């Protein structure tokens, strides 16, 4: 404040006193007990003391800075000398004797305010108002300000319940002070009557007094802490509060003070070392905080809603901005509610602030709520729910609304379920991994990768057809068709095994659609393939191996034609079911003539079943040349046409190529009519369902074939009618395995090609995107220029 000139003696004296009072070693004395005791020891009337405090600006600041302290001391001297207290009197009154403080047993150079005597004296007077409070809080209480009265009243009411009651005990301003408070925590409530105006925290003091009565723990620190913390609350004459000090506590304080005084020097030295300590919560402090927490929220695992916490901390009389900052620091999970840890951290920060510590910018580590038992103070024992609760902060309480008292009850459960939350996340992550796993399964197997259990209508005939096509065209571009065809059928259905495998691969490459499907279905397909193959080899009616992949809903097909194909293939697939490896989207007839025998060979490679198929239908191999042997088709078709004629129409074009490939198969089929028929019969019912899938893949290649090889049409036309038959044939072709092998290669080749195309396209896409961005930027800049040129018409 005003300039204060001190004589040397005064300077020394004051600095000593300041050091003594500056327990926290922060160069600021927040109205801690020492200060109040000091003032009390000055044996000045309370109002005088209050006035002094006002004058020196401590009340304004909330704490005694060094200058304020000095001014206060000077004023004490002035008052003691009988001069009127004026701001100017600080400097005007000359030759003031040093302020006298009734020394207690405290040996600190007899400066230590011996409030004891004064306390006892005052107590009587204040007892009515302030039950012998531990003094500290009471100092404040008496104080003062009417606003404190309100809080106090509320506190009074609350104390018994104390939802947001100011801490009954002065929050441990410092580790040592804390100790004392421990005892008081709950006792004080009884003291409500503390001067209404008293600081909110007064009940705190009251509590202390109640419990401190006779509490030997009341070290000198205990009073100070409450005072330290709450002194700022009180403008009321500290003396009043001093008076309220417990005699017993006083005595205790005396003893403690002695200790304290003895340690003052140490404190000073400790300043630097203890700097970190302020943020540490000692056990006593923690216990205190926990008790306070309990008053607001009985469940230690629960939350304190923001409004309640606001009310509570507002009593500390800290400026709202600081409280807001404290809140920001302590509300770790930003949920608008305080968990026990957060509350303790907030409380600790408030205490520290009241004691003059500056608020940190970031929450100190020691105050951070940890997932597991945290603070070194490790008062864990006192906070049973802490562990679980500490986990909760990490878990973002369910509701963010600051004031949801109703949630208090739910919070505990939520807190308790924090572990569940954690596990939940784990679960979810694991599920994710599962899904990824699924998607990865397919690619793992090169054969099945991409594959989607597209039933490949790998009727030998079809394959042959394809091969023939290839031979004619001699181009691989047909290959893509096969994969496409395969794909369509894939999508439609997944059960075809070998072919399906190929198809799937082809599909993914060719179309990219439902590639994921293919992946997932792969494993199934594989299994199915195997089973199918075996079944096919056995040509048992049960070949309809369980449609491994769930019939892929066609909808994923982007190609409309594929739908048709699906249908087409479904027919064939159905037939296949009987004894053919899932013809899944008929492996688009591999346009590789050389593959004709290849597939046969591949088959064994691709799938064991294939081999069996081939073995089982050795006749099929040589039948490839029967590709054009439509007679068998007719024969076969006849048996199957009935079933599939409906679908044939659409499948015709698509099936044509398929037919070609399936011709050999059909021829084979013809030879194995018996088998086929059996299969067909057996698969008839399944045809419909399966038909779609086999159709899917085949359609693609088939389609391409159509485009690329019209010449096949003529041949195909002849068989249009038989397309359906073909489909059926294909479906039931035992020779499919062979074609599957060929198709597989073709599919793989097509896959490769498609992949390359994909990468090229992707690159192109990225380039275009970049260009787009650039263009947009240009556009923006042009717009800006336009705006510049255009008269600023608006804005």
């Amino acid at each position, binding site marked *: 404040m005003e300039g204060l000139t001190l004589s040397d003696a005064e300077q020394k004296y004051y600095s000593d006193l300041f050091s003594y009072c500056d327990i926290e070693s922060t160069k600021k004395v927040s109205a801690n007990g020492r200060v109040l005791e000091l003032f009390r020891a000055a044996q000045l009337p309370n109002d005088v003391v209050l006035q002094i405090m006002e004058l020196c600006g401590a009340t*304004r600041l909330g704490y005694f800075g060094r200058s304020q302290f000095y001014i206060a001391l000077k004023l004490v001297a002035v008052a003691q000398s009988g001069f009127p207290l004026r701001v100017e009197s600080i400097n005007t009154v000359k030759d003031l004797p040093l302020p006298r403080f009734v020394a207690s047993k405290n040996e600190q150079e007899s400066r230590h305010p011996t409030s004891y005597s004064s306390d006892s004296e005052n107590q009587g007077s204040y007892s009515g108002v302030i039950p012998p409070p531990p003094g500290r809080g009471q100092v404040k209480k008496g104080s003062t300000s009417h606003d404190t009265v309100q809080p106090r009243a509320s506190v009074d009411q609350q104390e018994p319940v104390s939802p947001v009651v100011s801490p009954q005990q002065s929050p441990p301003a410092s580790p040592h002070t804390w100790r004392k408070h421990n005892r008081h925590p709950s006792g004080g409530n009884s003291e409500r009557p503390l001067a209404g105006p008293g600081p909110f925290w007064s009940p705190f003091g009251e509590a202390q007094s109640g419990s401190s009565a006779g509490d030997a723990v009341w070290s000198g620190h205990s009073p100070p802490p409450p005072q330290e913390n709450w002194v700022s609350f009180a403008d009321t004459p500290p003396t009043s509060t001093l008076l309220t000090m417990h005699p017993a506590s006083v005595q205790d304080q005396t003893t403690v003070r002695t200790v304290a005084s003895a340690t003052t020097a140490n404190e000073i030295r400790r300043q630097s070392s203890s700097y970190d300590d302020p943020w540490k919560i000692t056990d006593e402090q923690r216990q205190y905080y926990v008790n306070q927490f309990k008053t607001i929220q009985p469940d230690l695992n629960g939350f304190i809603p923001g409004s309640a916490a*606001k009310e509570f901390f507002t009593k500390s009389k800290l400026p709202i901005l600081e409280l*807001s900052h404290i*809140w*920001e620091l302590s509300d770790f999970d930003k949920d608008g509610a305080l968990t026990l840890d957060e509350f303790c951290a907030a409380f600790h920060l408030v205490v520290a602030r009241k004691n003059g510590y500056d608020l940190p*910018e970031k929450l100190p580590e020691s105050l951070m709520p940890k997932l597991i038992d945290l603070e070194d103070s490790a008062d864990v024992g006192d906070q049973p729910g802490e562990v679980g609760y500490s986990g909760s902060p990490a878990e973002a309480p369910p509701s963010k609304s*600051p004031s949801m008292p109703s949630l208090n009850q739910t919070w505990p459960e939520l807190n308790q379920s924090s572990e569940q939350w954690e596990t939940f996340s784990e679960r979810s992550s694991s599920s994710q991994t599962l899904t990824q796993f699924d998607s990865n399964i397919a690619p793992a197997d090169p054969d099945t990768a991409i594959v989607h259990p597209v039933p490949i209508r790998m009727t030998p005939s079809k394959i042959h057809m394809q091969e023939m096509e290839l031979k004619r065209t001699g181009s691989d571009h047909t290959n893509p068709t096969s994969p496409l065809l395969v794909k369509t059928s894939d999508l439609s259905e997944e059960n075809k095994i070998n072919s399906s495998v190929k198809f799937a691969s082809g599909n993914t490459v060719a179309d990219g659609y439902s590639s994921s499907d293919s992946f997932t279905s792969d494993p199934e397909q594989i299994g199915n393939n195997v089973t199918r193959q075996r079944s096919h080899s056995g040509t048992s009616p049960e070949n309809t191996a369980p449609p491994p992949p769930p019939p892929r809903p066609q909808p994923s097909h982007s190609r409309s034609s594929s739908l048709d194909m699906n249908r087409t293939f479904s027919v064939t697939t159905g037939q296949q079911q009987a004894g053919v490896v899932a013809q899944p989207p008929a492996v688009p007839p591999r346009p590789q003539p050389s593959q004709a025998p290849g597939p046969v060979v591949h088959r064994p490679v691709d799938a064991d079943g294939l081999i069996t198929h081939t073995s089982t239908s050795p006749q099929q191999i040589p039948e490839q040349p029967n590709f054009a042997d439509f007679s068998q088709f007719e024969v076969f078709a006849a048996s199957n046409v009935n079933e599939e004629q409906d679908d044939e129409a659409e499948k015709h074009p698509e099936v044509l190529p398929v037919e070609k490939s399936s011709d050999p198969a059909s021829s084979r089929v013809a030879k194995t009519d018996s088998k086929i028929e059996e299969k067909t019969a057996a698969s008839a019912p399944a045809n419909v369902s399966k038909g779609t899938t086999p159709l899917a893949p085949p359609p693609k290649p088939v389609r391409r074939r159509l485009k690329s090889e019209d010449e096949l049409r003529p041949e195909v036309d002849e068989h249009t009618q038989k397309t359906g038959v073909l489909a059926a044939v294909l479906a039931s072709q035992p020779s499919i395995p062979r074609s599957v092998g060929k198709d597989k290669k073709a599919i793989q080749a097509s896959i490769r090609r498609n992949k390359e195309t994909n990468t090229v396209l992707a690159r192109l896409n990225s380039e275009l995107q970049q260009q787009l961005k650039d263009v947009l930027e240009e556009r*923006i800049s042009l717009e800006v220029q336009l705006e510049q040129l255009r008269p600023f018409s608006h*804005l």
Partner: protein
Amino acid sequence: MAVCVAVIAKENYPLYIRSIPTENELKFHYMVHTSLDVVDEKISAMGKALVDQRELYLGLLYPTEDYKVYGYVTNSKVKFVMVVDSSNTALRDNEIRSMFRKLHNSYTDVMCNPFYNPGDRIQSRAFDGMVTSMMIQARRGKESLVARAPGAWSPEEAAKGGAEDL
């Protein structure tokens, strides 16, 4: 990257506005004020649909030769306005979006603070820090001292009677 960040309340008064101190702050304040019209225009244009469907990010409100003004409005009609330097061409739309997202999150945190009364000036240090980081990024090469307090339009310390040292 921002040169000026402002949070405007529903009633179109500023809750928080902060500019790079070296610049003429009045100019930025004026720009923000005039951009409110554009914001309202955009809100009403989209207003036909349900509020939920309304996109929070408004995009470029209007460009001037030196600056571009971007807007963002929350569901509670709290508007965030950001002025960025036009010379900062590297700023993409998503960056602006992410900045607004950060702003929104910080604003939410401020709202969660029970000590904050909606409608009050935002004096949260955390919010300040976040805005500073956004502004400092842009000014790294230039004045890297976008001091929080000085730049802040809302003098926290001055407002505090206690004038505690914080």
